[in-house]
């Protein structure tokens, strides 16, 4: 008898356990199709996997990347991103997003598909170790000059102070140097033309692999002039030189 009651309680508890999950959303929620921006979530396990790369193996794999991203992680074309000293987690996430199709690129998707999770971590570890010191030997496109000197002050204000009236945070709060957020790349040595393309892609929603819509929310509020000013300033290497928000 005791045993039967035990089984009954067990069955009831199992049923309750399984059914409780279904009621969480509530029945009155009209749900649009679920859109998932990226399969990557920064759990401890993912961070450990993405940080576990072997830079020596990465060195061998990265020889495939030389033609576009440069031998030292600095590209000769301003529309291709520089990868030298890029955070490991950033490279790993972007490769995973290319692999899963969350970020689209006819060039990068097949390449990412040929890499395993460990390969991605290895390549990420390799680029993470590359120095950003100037090298007269290679033909890096970075830095490019500003097209308009006024852009420096405009971008400086946004990078250092943001715009509170529009709820725009300062770029440096996430992209450095004063603050950092997991998965946000440093922009100190990034190419301007590439940055402009990405800001525009975020603004229009063409690129939508940012977790919790951070960059899409910000980019859509920027004016055309601000987009150009920011991309050019970072592309000219002014992003981390702490341009004072002066009234000039």
């Amino acid at each position, binding site marked *: 008898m005791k045993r039967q009651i*035990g089984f009954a309680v067990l069955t009831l508890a199992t049923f309750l356990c399984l059914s409780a999950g279904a009621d969480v959303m509530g029945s009155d*929620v009209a749900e649009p199709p679920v859109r998932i921006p990226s399969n990557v979530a920064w759990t401890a396990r993912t961070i450990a996997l993405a940080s576990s790369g072997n830079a020596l193996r990465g060195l061998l794999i990265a020889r495939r990347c030389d033609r576009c991203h440069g031998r030292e992680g600095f590209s000769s074309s301003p529309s291709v991103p520089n990868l030298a000293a890029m955070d490991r987690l950033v490279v790993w996430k972007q490769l995973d997003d290319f692999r899963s199709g969350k970020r689209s690129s006819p060039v990068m998707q097949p390449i990412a598909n040929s890499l395993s999770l460990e390969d991605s971590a290895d390549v990420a570890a390799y680029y993470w170790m590359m120095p950003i010191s100037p090298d007269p030997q290679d033909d890096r496109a970075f830095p490019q000059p500003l097209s308009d000197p006024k852009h420096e002050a405009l971008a400086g204000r946004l990078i250092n102070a943001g715009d509170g009236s529009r*709820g725009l945070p300062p770029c440096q*709060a996430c992209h450095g140097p004063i603050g950092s957020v997991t998965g946000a790349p440093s922009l100190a040595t990034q190419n301007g033309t590439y940055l402009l393309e990405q800001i525009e892609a975020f603004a229009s929603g063409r690129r939508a692999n940012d977790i919790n819509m951070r960059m899409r929310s910000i980019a859509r509020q920027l004016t055309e002039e601000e987009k150009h000013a920011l991309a050019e300033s970072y592309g000219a290497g002014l992003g981390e030189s702490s341009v004072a928000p002066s009234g000039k």
Partner: protein
Amino acid sequence: MALVSITLICTWLTVRFPFEVESGIEHLLIGPNRVNPQTLHLHGEFVESNLGPVEDSGGGVTVRMIAEQYLFVPQCVVVPTGVPIRLRMTSADVVHKPTISETGEELKVVPGYVVESHLQFERAGEYQMPCREFCGPGHYTMRSRLLAVPVEQFRRLSREARMGCAK
């Protein structure tokens, strides 16, 4: 005996898979108002297609938002006047405190939990909602806006337009 074993199994499951599995067991033990801040975008109530205002069957409106360093997402939400509004919010990283300047309403948003606030706007207009809890170097610009419009106007707006009022 059975109860003890169930308790043990459930405890083991919670300890073994903390946040990894969003199963019924987890919700039974910790309740529906707990979420994993790291996986908000993957499943559950705060996936990006579920954010923003949604009309409930009871005539009210539920607004779901994420507070994260250093933004509220969606950044601007259109809400109807004269209708009870249920604001459900969670944080993706640290503690934030959105405060509706005009009414003094405060919400302390803690990662891992869903906070709910019941609001009703009688006057149409723009309500600023800045963050009032220091959350990092971008804290001073962190703000969202609630735009209260007459309920008929609200019903005519598309889903995108209800979240697209950011300047």
